[in-house]
């Protein structure tokens, strides 16, 4: 009895959680006007891909899709490289001021990124980088949370492995490259998903730093389209589907790593 109640509750709440996505998907395959009916329908009467055609052929969304994909991948790779080196240094090396430096970094995570946006904008504007890919890549080069995650993980790698490699004549960089990177792959995958999704979903900074439709990432382009198409739910839903599908795929494929990242991030020192 209790079990039936529990399952009914779980199934209903899961469905309620998913309803917005189901409606989004359905409406995106409807012809103009079909999503503006009462009661709302969840199955397209005539099924059509017109909305997607309009987005790609007339509104040039492919370009925005490419921008999002290119920037998310680039930021992910560069920051993974920078963060992993720094995380390794914090985990395994002794140097003066290490703990103080690490604590300063950790406590500055409380500073909201909005604080940095005005000076960052002026800085990039003065060197002509506003409305370029660099405007998005530069603030994403390294991040404190990433360094923290990698440090936590690398600390669990036994020192003896690294010392043995050193005895065999490996240089510090070779140890990083041949020992640390392979052993830390799980956490690197975790961080890669966080960074990829974070960059893909980011809105405020791209809205500020990119000023031209051809440079917009998908979220910025979508918000911009919304201004002109408030009466076109079908078109906007198709745009939302295009924006959301890649992140859902990345998440579904790698969800184990993503969930682990949330849990590791919540471990207190």
């Amino acid at each position, binding site marked *: 009895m*209790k*079990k039936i109640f*529990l*399952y009914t*509750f*779980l199934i209903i709440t*899961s469905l309620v*959680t998913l309803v*917005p*996505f189901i*409606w989004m998907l359905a*409406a995106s395959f409807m012809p103009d006007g079909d*999503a503006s009916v*009462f*009661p*709302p329908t969840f199955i397209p009467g005539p099924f059509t891909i017109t909305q997607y055609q309009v987005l790609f052929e007339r509104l040039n969304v492919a370009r925005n899709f490419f921008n999002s994909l290119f920037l998310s991948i680039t930021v992910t790779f560069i920051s993974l*490289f920078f963060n992993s080196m*720094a995380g390794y*240094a914090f985990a395994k*090396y*002794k*140097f003066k001021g*290490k703990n103080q430096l690490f604590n300063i970094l950790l406590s*500055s995570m*409380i*500073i*909201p990124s*909005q*604080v*940095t946006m*005005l*000076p*960052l904008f002026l800085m990039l504007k003065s060197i002509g980088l506003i409305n370029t890919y660099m405007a998005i890549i*530069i603030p994403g*080069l*390294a991040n404190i949370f990433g*360094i923290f995650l990698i440090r936590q993980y690398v600390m669990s790698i036994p*020192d003896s492995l*690294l*010392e043995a490699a*050193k005895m065999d004549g490996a240089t*510090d*960089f070779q140890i990083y490259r041949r020992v640390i990177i392979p052993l830390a792959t799980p956490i690197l995958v975790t961080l890669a998903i966080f960074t990829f*999704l974070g960059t*893909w*979903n980011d*809105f405020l900074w791209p809205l500020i730093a990119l000023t031209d439709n051809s440079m917009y990432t*998908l*979220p*910025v382009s*979508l*918000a911009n389209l919304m201004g002109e198409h408030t009466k076109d*739910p079908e078109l*906007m*839903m198709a745009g*939302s589907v295009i924006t959301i599908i890649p992140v*859902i795929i990345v998440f579904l494929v790698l969800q184990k790593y993503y969930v682990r990242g*949330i849990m590791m991030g*919540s471990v*207190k020192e």
Partner: protein
Amino acid sequence: MKNFSARAAYFFLAPALSAIFIFFFIPVIAAFVISLTDFDIYALGDYSTVRFIGLSNYVELFDDPLFWTALKNTFYYVLVASPLSIAVSLGAAMLLNSKLVKLKGIFRLSYFIPVVTTLVAVAIVWRFIYHPKFGIMNYFLSWFNINPVDWLGDPVWAMPAIILMSVWKNFGYNMIIFIAGLQNISEDLYEAADMEGANGLQKFRSITLPMLAPTTLFVSIITMIGFFQLFAEPYVMTQGGPLNSTLSIVQYMYQEGFRWWNMGYSASIAFVLFFIIFIGTLIQFKLQKSAR
């Protein structure tokens, strides 16, 4: 470790730390300096017109009714949405942690999907869900004979509508953290309570809640910090309206700084936001300490 020199450490740290220093720490300091100036659209063309005006921007903020509105709205949002989303997260985590439930993965996945999806895209979806005539929300309410509500067009309902959407979007994240926390509570405690005839509510109050205290502190802090930065939802769904009823601090900062180019003023808004988040975090730590 032996033979692992500090010099190599500096080599590994250099790229990340210089990036963070140049593109994070310097801008933070610069933002504070800018907030003490009258940096505006003219200064954008010619930096020499910038004048140092001390704390004038902060004084002006104090007399700015629109800023107070943004502040009030943001507090309304944070103070309602944070506890609500944490409560839903905890509820979902406890359900999914129940030994009676199989296929946990599927339920967990469906609760979690909103977390990873693009905020702007789902805000657009919800804008249509809240459509007064054709939206799913009013359709759902019509089953219970509730009259249609103009969710995003009514100053009273616009913020609750945004809160509901935020809870839906975010509860999955904290749910995962709570599940991890619940799994760390020893079964023995519950068994001992069972032997003494404790009921479900008693067990929840005297075992689950206290054992989860550190997790709850962490969750409240990250949730609060995130919610104070409310921006995309009102930007996409209401543009801060109707009648500025959903204008948030970050949105006001964005408008002042990047629409009207009052960058000095905008920087002071950003610093007030930082200050509020800082105080909020301190309070949470204090509360948690005194509770023990």
